[in-house]
């Protein structure tokens, strides 16, 4: 509303922080801005169509698909002998003193990622681990997305008491550094995959809620929301049909980044010995077992690290693509 009071300082800060979401301006932006101003919306919108997904996005999609494929069809891969079965590896003979006779092997043609000191094929471990790590990543962010997204949407739309209450709730959760909160929750609940997922969901909730809140806040001030109210739409309808579709791209893109963050967090917890119980294979646990062998067999740590790096890279990239594809008009107008 034009004559309404100026935003409180806090709101301005919040909206500005929400600007993290603002995608980086693409190639021809500077001149385009002027051209767009002069020529109306046509120019701006048409550039969106021109842009295909781009090779980077395809690479990212291929990588993620490959991961998902191998995770889902891991039993098949094992049964067809493409990768050795991590459960039924020929364990090395144990000498009388309890030392393994087989030592870790660096990557080779037979074992693309090498073997660990127990003679297990690391590639097969990584695929086994991806089943848990990806589940933890996607499920916890999905939960955080649903709960946090919903809370944020409400907080941004109902600015008054509801917003304030949700805001305080988030502030409390945000007062704990994320990893420490996760550590806390896992220790309290126990080291199962479910509990780690749950802990990381709790951690990602306030983050996603804050993004949703900022986005919802800025969209809720648009005139089309007022217009919908003036049509007689109920709050539920306005939230669902007017605000949500507009906040979704930003949230989706942050959620993709969130999956990456959670995957890293799982590994971090594992490194602290506070993640999923060590007898269950996850990416973090593989790295954790490799740390004592750093000097002689760095590949044990490096192989899963590279997989994590590529996954995070791909997810970040996709997050950016989502943002760029949906926000172009925002930036240009």
């Amino acid at each position: 509303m034009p004559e309404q009071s100026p935003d409180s300082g806090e709101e301005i800060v919040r909206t500005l922080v929400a600007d993290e979401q603002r995608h980086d301006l693409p190639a021809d932006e500077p001149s385009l801005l002027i051209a767009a101003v002069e020529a109306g919306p046509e120019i701006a919108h048409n550039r969106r169509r021109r842009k295909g997904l781009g090779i980077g996005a395809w690479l990212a999609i291929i990588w993620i698909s490959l991961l998902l494929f191998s995770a889902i069809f891991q039993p098949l891969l094992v049964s067809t002998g493409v990768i050795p079965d991590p459960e039924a590896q020929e364990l090395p003979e144990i000498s009388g003193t309890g030392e393994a006779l087989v030592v870790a092997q660096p990557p080779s043609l037979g074992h693309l990622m090498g073997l660990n000191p127990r003679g297990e094929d690391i590639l097969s471990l990584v695929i086994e681990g991806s089943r848990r790590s990806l589940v933890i990543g996607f499920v916890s962010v999905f939960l955080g997305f649903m709960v946090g997204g919903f809370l944020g949407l409400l907080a941004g739309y109902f600015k008054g008491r509801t917003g304030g209450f949700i805001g305080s709730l988030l502030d409390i959760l945000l007062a704990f550094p994320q990893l420490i909160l996760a550590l806390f929750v896992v220790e309290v609940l126990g080291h199962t995959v479910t509990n780690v997922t749950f802990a990381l969901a709790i951690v990602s909730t306030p983050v996603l809620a804050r993004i949703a809140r900022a986005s919802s806040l800025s969209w809720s001030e648009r005139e089309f929301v007022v217009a919908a109210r003036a049509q007689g739409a109920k709050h539920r309808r306005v939230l669902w049909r007017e605000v949500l579709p507009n906040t979704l791209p930003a949230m989706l893109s942050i959620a993709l980044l969130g999956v990456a963050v959670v995957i890293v967090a799982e590994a971090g917890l594992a490194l602290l010995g506070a993640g999923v119980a060590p007898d269950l294979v996850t990416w973090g646990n593989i790295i954790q077992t490799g740390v004592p062998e750093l000097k002689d067999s760095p590949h044990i740590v490096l192989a899963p690290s590279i997989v994590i790096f590529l996954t995070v890279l791909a997810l970040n990239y996709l997050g950016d693509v989502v943002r760029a594809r949906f926000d172009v008009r925002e930036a240009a107008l």
Partner: protein
Amino acid sequence: MSRRRRAVGVERFEPAPLDAPLLEVEDLHTHFRTGRGVARAVDGVSFSLERGRTLGVVGESGSGKTVLARSIMGLLPKSNVERTGSIKFEGREVIGATPDDLRELWGSQISMVFQDPMTSLNPVMKIGKQITEMLLQHLDISKDYARELALSLLESVGIPEADRRLKEYPHQMSGGMRQRIMIAIAIACGPKLLFADEPTTALDVTVQAQILDLLQAQQRERFMAMILVTHDLGVVAGRTDEIAVMYAGRVVEKAPTKVLFSELRHPYTEALLRSIPKLGAPSHTRLAAIGGRPPDIVNPPAGCKFSPRCPYARERCLEEEPPLIDTATPGHEFRCWIPVGTPENREALEANRAAGAPSALAVVGEGNGMGTAAAPSAPTPHTRSGSIDTKGGA
């Protein structure tokens, strides 16, 4: 440090002979490379401006008037922009000048007042700093003296309590105040040419009048030339010596102000004047709307750019673009095959009306002016609009 360099620059720009025009623009083209193709924002504009005179540039959005102003100043981004033609300021070519040379010109010789005084002042810098910064950049003076100059500048643009204002930030002032500050900054170093780019669009009417008066007074007092860019014919009517009407990146009609209003020849100028609601006309007077919408500068129509909306357009207009044609009145040029006020013009209108072309009806006020409205993806409005219009008028 930069003071020495400045001195060199000043020498380089020794005053030009006073009889040459202050600004000569020859066949200026400014093209933007966009995703869709080349946007010809300014497409072959020529004019010249004498010292102390005022040129009004009038056009709607998309006409290229703002880009024209920025092209002349050289304030466009470097990437994706192509600027060709010639711009001579005091006889010296500006296109191709080095950034250092341009900086010598900016502020001290040519300066600019922008549309929105809120966004064109730095929000986190005090007013005083924003003015003295400019003075210190161009004049070899001390900080204290710069501050005094700033004070007197603020007073001369009508800002009360200038002393206190110097220590304030832009957001603490009203829109009119901010625009006064912008003007103070623009005139601080005594430029010879002032661009005013929609200087009052963001302001209220009562304040608009004050700002326009102020600009005019300062211009006279300092013998500045001024280019006043606006979409409002009312703003330029009483305050310019000459007016250029722009459409789709081109000047379609240019004339001394009085001549333009009394002897206008271009159908667009006519349509623009007619579509404005007049205070003098009784209420509920039906407006003569121009059908269709402003042109797409990336895919402009063939022939005369206004032809799709023109009530007088004939075959030739759709195919062949008219050149600038001189009239008997010195300084009056227009770009039209069938100019307003000629017998051909009346014939064309009759013929179009008989054929039921909607835009023809629109301008004479019988249609509803819905012309091309239904076509989100531009062109060929002539064929398309007819059918829609019949629906609309039903």
